[in-house]
């Protein structure tokens, strides 16, 4: 089916508008984290294009449109009454989508198209208020191209409609004034609608627009150091960061790959540092275990909130910076490599009683903060870190089968025999004793006993890491069940078991909930942390006397005056999640994460300090450097003297001079030869033979034939023949041939010239019959003519002289049989047209 140009234009425009509307709503949906509106927009776009634009089966009448719009407005108003704050933005943006969907089912004209464009643009503006990943940027670029296409087609459509209106007015019987002639219809070949040329222009415009937008974004100065963080409607759900965590809760997250945060580790100068071992980002720690739950110590008073202290900066202390970007979470906890200290003015507070770090605002939004840490030495996380404050050891020795019994002198800790027997804790105590007996180190060596127990759990092969839900014996405590009966579980079970086993041996422990990641992005130099990186591990308290110099390393022992905390991670190595090799998909995601990182860093979080440090200052420095270089007189003297020295070296001996001059001559000759080769149409023919057939046939054929004939014309032009504007190629060649007839028969070059012009006609106007044989003939003919036609003499000899071309008897086989008689004339002659017969 052949569509008229106008119908083609209409359909192209309708299709583009449908795409643009859908993309706009998808951008809004990305911000709102909703799939409903994009799905609705996509459906409406498809249906309206099919059943309203393509087949006009479903066209809303005006009254129906009005009714639907009123209903949409009522719905949005109702939603507005139920919401407050920034959610208003969501509701208003919803109205834009509803109106867009309704308008799509109307019969389209310029006005409706404009409305749709406006609604879509406002949706994108609304979407900009939300927080977005790099996906938004990618789709925004696509949206830009689509909207440019819409505006381009709309411009054509408007002009066509104006012309159409003028035509219809002109067709009226008694019309006055001037109108476009009604009989002058748009030709079928008009490039309306989608076509390659327009798309090319559009692509150029789109790329230029992108460049311009980026330049504008970078150059326009920011006014504050706190950019708009973006609305995040639904924060990520977290577990384990409350005052209590049940065993098994983390299992909900371990299948979820949603990004939670990114951590960059740098030295104090800001250079990225790669940490070899997995990185542990600490959240909260729990000292008390009871009834399958870990919880904070209820006897420790809350409210010891304080600002973060600065870390010790002395000899032997290795400090690093950690910059963390945390996604919006449903908790105020923030995560970092522990121990951490103050670095920037991030709005964070530290609760010493809970040993947790919090952000001040409870609004779910992205936060970025930078801290320093002393936990990294030699590109590894150290296992033991100093305790900052004096430690109350008793709370870290709590055992679940002990309970507080009130007595007249106060509460007293007493064993709960029933629990101890029934819940099987006695078996745990027995197991701890057995392992301790098997341990080659004495009971007083807490460090080695802890390490031994860790290895027993991780490497004995008896305990298996599993994310699957394991049926537990309900009569037993989950940890007892894990240790004695069902020896499968995830990190929480391993960590709880180790902590309680060590406590059974009198070693203070606590369980820590946080994230452990191996996912280092080599492009962006950051660690990507996801929900499934949630992890639990154990920290063992080592008193001052337990800490040896081997454990401390280069750090001063004085740092450990309150003792230290040893990190133990008892999960089997198979569950570490570390894979040395990366699949293509993982590499793709790494690249995506890197782009997202760049996006967040340089787009979402671009502020005044970053702009100053990463854009203005480097540019300023570079400019200054160039200016200094330019006006550095000493430098110029040195450069000139250096050039002179090299020059002297080059031309030190006559042999070198000759060598260089010869090389230069050869180079010039080569360049000239190449230039001549490319001037020859045979080169084009060679190129055409290597191009795809379609290209060759449709784009190069005419051009090639024309190029060959032009070349032939140039050859004749050298001999003083010029084609008159009124002459056809055949007439021109015939006139040249006839003007050189000396004998009855034509010479070979004349026949070749006539043959060439006939092939040229066949190829150029032969109605597509461009066969390879013709091409061969054509090129053979031009090469033959090039060889046979004489080359002109130097100009100063041409003037007022006539020249008779030698015939074949004089020139041998290579010369034409006949001769061309031509009177040469200066190039600046104003005479035009074929030369008269000499």
């Amino acid at each position: 089916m052949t569509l008229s140009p106008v119908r083609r234009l209409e359909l192209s425009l309708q299709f583009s508008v449908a795409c643009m509307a859908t993309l706009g709503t998808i951008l809004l949906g990305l911000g709102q984290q909703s799939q409903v509106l994009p799905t609705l927009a996509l459906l409406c776009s498809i249906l309206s294009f099919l059943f309203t634009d393509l087949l006009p089966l479903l066209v809303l009448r005006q009254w129906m449109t009005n009714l639907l719009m009123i209903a949409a407005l009522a719905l949005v108003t109702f939603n507005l009454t139920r919401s407050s704050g920034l959610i208003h933005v969501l509701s208003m943006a919803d109205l834009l989508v509803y109106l867009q969907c309704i308008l799509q089912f109307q019969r389209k004209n310029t006005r409706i198209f404009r409305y749709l464009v406006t609604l879509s643009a406002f949706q994108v503006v609304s979407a900009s208020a939300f927080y977005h990943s790099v996906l938004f940027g990618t789709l925004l670029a696509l949206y830009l191209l689509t909207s440019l296409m819409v505006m381009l087609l709309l411009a054509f459509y408007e002009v066509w409609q104006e012309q159409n209106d003028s035509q219809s007015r002109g067709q009226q019987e008694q019309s006055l004034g001037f109108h476009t002639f009604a009989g002058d219809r748009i030709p079928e070949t008009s490039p309306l609608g989608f076509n390659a040329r327009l798309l090319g222009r559009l692509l150029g415009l789109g790329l230029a627009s992108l460049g311009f937008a980026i330049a504008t974004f970078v150059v326009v100065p920011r006014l504050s150091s706190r950019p708009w963080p973006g609305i995040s409607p639904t924060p990520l759900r977290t577990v384990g960061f409350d005052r209590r965590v049940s065993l098994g809760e983390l299992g909900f997250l371990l299948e979820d790959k949603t990004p939670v945060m990114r951590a960059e580790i740098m030295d104090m100068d800001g250079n990225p540092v790669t940490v070899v071992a997995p990185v542990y980002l600490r959240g909260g720690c729990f000292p008390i275990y009871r009834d399958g739950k870990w919880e904070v110590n209820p006897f420790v008073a809350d409210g010891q909130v304080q600002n973060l202290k600065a870390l010790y900066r002395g000899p032997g202390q290795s400090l690093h910076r950690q910059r963390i970007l945390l996604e919006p979470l449903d908790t105020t906890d923030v995560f970092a490599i522990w121990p951490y200290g103050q670095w920037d003015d991030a709005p964070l507070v530290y609760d010493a009683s809970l040993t947790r770090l919090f952000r001040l605002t409870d609004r779910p939004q992205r936060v970025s903060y930078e801290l320093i840490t002393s936990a990294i030495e030699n590109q590894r996380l150290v296992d033991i870190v100093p305790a900052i404050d004096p430690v109350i050891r008793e709370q870290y020795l709590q055992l679940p089968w002990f309970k507080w019994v009130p007595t007249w002198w106060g509460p007293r800790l007493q064993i709960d025999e029933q629990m101890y027997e029934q819940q099987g804790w006695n078996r745990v105590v027995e197991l701890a004793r057995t392992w301790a007996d098997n341990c080659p180190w004495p009971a007083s060596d807490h460090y080695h006993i802890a390490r031994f127990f860790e290895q027993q759990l991780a490497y004995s092969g008896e305990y298996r890491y599993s994310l699957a839900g394991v049926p537990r014996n309900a009569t037993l405590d989950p940890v007892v069940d894990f240790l004695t009966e069902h020896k499968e579980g995830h990190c929480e079970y391993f960590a709880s078991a180790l902590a309680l086993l060590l406590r059974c041996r009198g070693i203070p422990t606590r369980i820590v909930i946080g994230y452990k990641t191996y996912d280092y992005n080599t492009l962006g130099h950051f660690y990507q942390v996801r929900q499934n990186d949630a992890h639990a591990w154990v920290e063992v308290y080592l008193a001052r006397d337990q800490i040896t110099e081997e454990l401390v390393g280069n750090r001063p022992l004085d740092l450990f005056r309150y003792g230290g905390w040893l990190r133990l991670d008892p999960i089997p190595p198979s569950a570490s999640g570390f894979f040395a090799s990366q699949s293509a998909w993982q590499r793709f995601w790494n690249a995506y994460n890197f782009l997202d990182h760049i996006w967040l860093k340089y787009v979402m979080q671009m502020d005044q300090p970053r702009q100053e440090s990463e854009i203005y200052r480097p540019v300023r420095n570079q400019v200054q450097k160039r200016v200094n270089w330019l006006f550095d007189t000493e430098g110029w003297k040195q450069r000139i003297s250096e050039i002179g020295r090299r020059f002297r070296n080059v031309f030190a001996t006559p042999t070198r001079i000759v060598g260089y001059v010869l090389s230069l001559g050869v180079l010039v000759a080569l360049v000239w030869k190449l230039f001549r080769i490319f001037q020859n149409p045979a080169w084009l023919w060679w190129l055409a033979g290597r191009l795809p057939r379609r290209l060759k046939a449709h784009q190069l054929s005419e051009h090639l034939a024309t190029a060959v004939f032009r070349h032939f014309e140039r050859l004749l032009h050298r001999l003083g023949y010029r084609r008159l504007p009124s002459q056809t190629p055949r007439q021109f060649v015939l006139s040249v041939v006839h003007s050189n007839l000396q004998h009855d028969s034509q010479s070979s070059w004349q026949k070749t010239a006539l043959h060439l012009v006939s092939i040229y006609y066949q190829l150029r106007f032969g109605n597509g019959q461009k066969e390879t044989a013709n091409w061969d003939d054509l090129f053979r003919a031009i090469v033959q003519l090039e060889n046979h036609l004489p080359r002109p003499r130097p100009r100063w000899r041409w003037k007022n002289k006539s020249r008779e071309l030698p015939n074949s008897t004089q020139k041998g086989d290579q010369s034409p049989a006949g001769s061309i008689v031509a009177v040469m004339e200066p190039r600046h002659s104003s005479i035009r047209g074929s030369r008269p017969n000499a």
Partner: protein
Amino acid sequence: MGDRKRIRVHLTRLGKYYAILTAGIFLAAMVRQVNLLLLLAGLVSAPLFFSWFSARRNLYGIKVRRRLPQRVSAGDLLVVEIEAERTIRYGQNWLITLTDRISRNGEAFDQPPGAADPPPRVTFFSLSHGVGQIAAYRGRLLERGRYVFGPIQVSTRFPLGLLEASMEIPEQQAVLVYPRLGVLNLPPLHRSHFDHEGQTRFERRSDRASGDFYGLRQWRAGDSPRLVHWRSSLRHKELLVRQFDRPRHRDVVIGANLWIPESPTREDFDRAEKAIRFAATLVHDLCRQGGNHISLGIAGKKTEWVSGPASPGFRDRALELLTLTTVGCRDALETFLIELRRRASPESDVIVVTTQDRDLSQVSMYGTIRYGRESTPPEPRSDKLRANQLTARGGQVATYSVAAKDFELIFSDQTKVES
């Protein structure tokens, strides 16, 4: 052509809204430091910025030619063809709109009432090198005069319709719009002048011998007995009648007095135009008949004369004079009539049309036309119909006043506009 013309670029209405939206986004981005909005502002403003270059470049290398007739009658359909071509070898011109300008007698031409359209324009969606494209517009010019078409304004809203770049190409051509021709409904005596030559072959000869003696011939049925040359009839013994040369083609002198008062109203102008149309129709009909010698005198702002044998060439000259003549308030009727009499031979038919609502018989010189210098003018006739037809010495003299209520009976110019 047109590459070095001055190109003006301005915002279209859509572009103005677009610019306001861009400014709003930029302002919001700066006030709230919304980086995404700033990026969006950059993306939105970029097309506006690049449209400026693109629109200007789109006007380079356009060659325009206009084709239109050199003359046309007022009210006739005028079709103007415009051919455009790209002179630059590579690339294309997109969405080119050519707007023609029309001025009449050096003044800007206003569209006639009821035509609320923009000035005439044609659109080329794309122009390529070496392929001339032709578009046309049509319309009607309702008033006589010399119309100048051009310069042509070349404009484009490519690529996005936000900006319109325009330049002028000094392609000017003039068209003479002749007065609209009407239909003459003259009295029978005058109509005989407009009979065609062939129709008189078998006409009945009148008794009056108005020409020179030519010869004798045999009597035919219907010949007047008075034409019988009895002496020759007796000699030849058959009835012979005399033959006379009849002057079939006579001189016609047409005078148009286009006087208007010093404070003319619209009606005065209409009256003058009607007189011009009457004279134009008269000239046109006489020239179509051919054979006559016509003198046309126009007493407008100044008095102008043109005379010559009736032919298409003379018709064009006379109509051109009528087209370009200007009405005036100079009352030079007497002088005009003297000149009229001077140019009229005794056998000439004289037709005078005037805008003045006065009896020409009151004019002292009128009698010299009518009766010769010796005669005295008669008493004023009833002005019921002042289209007098009186016999002069051989010729006829007719005067018509456009102001007369029954002028419509003689001349009708409400011809239907051709579609």
